[in-house]
């Protein structure tokens, strides 16, 4: 049954599975997330899965006249105290590493952007059980 009878708005978790620029997923999700927050909704979790983990890379260097989606999410996250979580399995196979994983795998560098964190699918499972709505933003391909 829809939640319209109560004053409490549904709480949301968002899952992004498309990479920035290669898809619109991080952009569409950004606008949706911003609107949720502006309209008094709680955002429980922003979870990056599959190609969506690319949003958390500090090495993304789009041209200066294009939107930097990583920076956009960092700013939104900072303002609203949301730390998007990149799934560790998706991240490792795509070369997104925090300091700990870079050391563990003896890689020359870490590239997780500030304001993002890496964790397992358990975070997503918890959101699925706890959030009123889980909305997925997939790539287009």
């Amino acid at each position: 049954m829809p939640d319209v009878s109560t004053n409490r708005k549904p709480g949301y978790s968002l899952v992004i599975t498309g990479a920035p620029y290669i898809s619109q997923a991080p952009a569409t999700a950004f606008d949706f997330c911003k609107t949720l927050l502006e309209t008094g909704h709680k955002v429980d979790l922003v979870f990056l899965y599959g190609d969506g983990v690319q949003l958390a890379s500090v090495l993304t260097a789009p041209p200066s006249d294009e939107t930097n989606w990583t920076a956009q999410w960092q700013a939104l996250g900072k303002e609203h105290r949301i730390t998007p979580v990149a799934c560790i399995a998706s991240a490792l196979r795509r070369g997104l590493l925090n300091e700990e994983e870079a050391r563990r795998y003896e890689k020359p560098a870490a590239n997780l952007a500030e304001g993002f964190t890496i964790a397992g699918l358990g975070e997503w499972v918890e959101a699925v059980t706890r959030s009123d709505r889980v909305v997925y933003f997939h790539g287009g391909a």
Partner: protein
Amino acid sequence: MKEPVESNAPLKCEGQVTLHLLNKPPSHPRFHSCMAALQAEDHLLLMENAVIALADSSVALPPDTSALVRDCLARGLAEGVRDGVTLVDTRGMVELTDRFQRIISW
């Protein structure tokens, strides 16, 4: 907290009313899969590349269809393209996701 699904609540004629979020163009297999999954009282929101369906004369859209206006504007599809389709901004999208407890992203 998520509202529990009552195990003895009657199903609607074919099941639970659903909001479908479709971001893929008609050429993508999921477009057709989505069309095959629509029930009478469901709502379809076209976003991203899916909005080109508004201009695709070979595509029939269900009566309760919305399209995200930002994606229509980007693609030059915001004016007089398809009767009966509601253009919604992101606030309108949030109103839809608030309203429908069941949401499927295609």
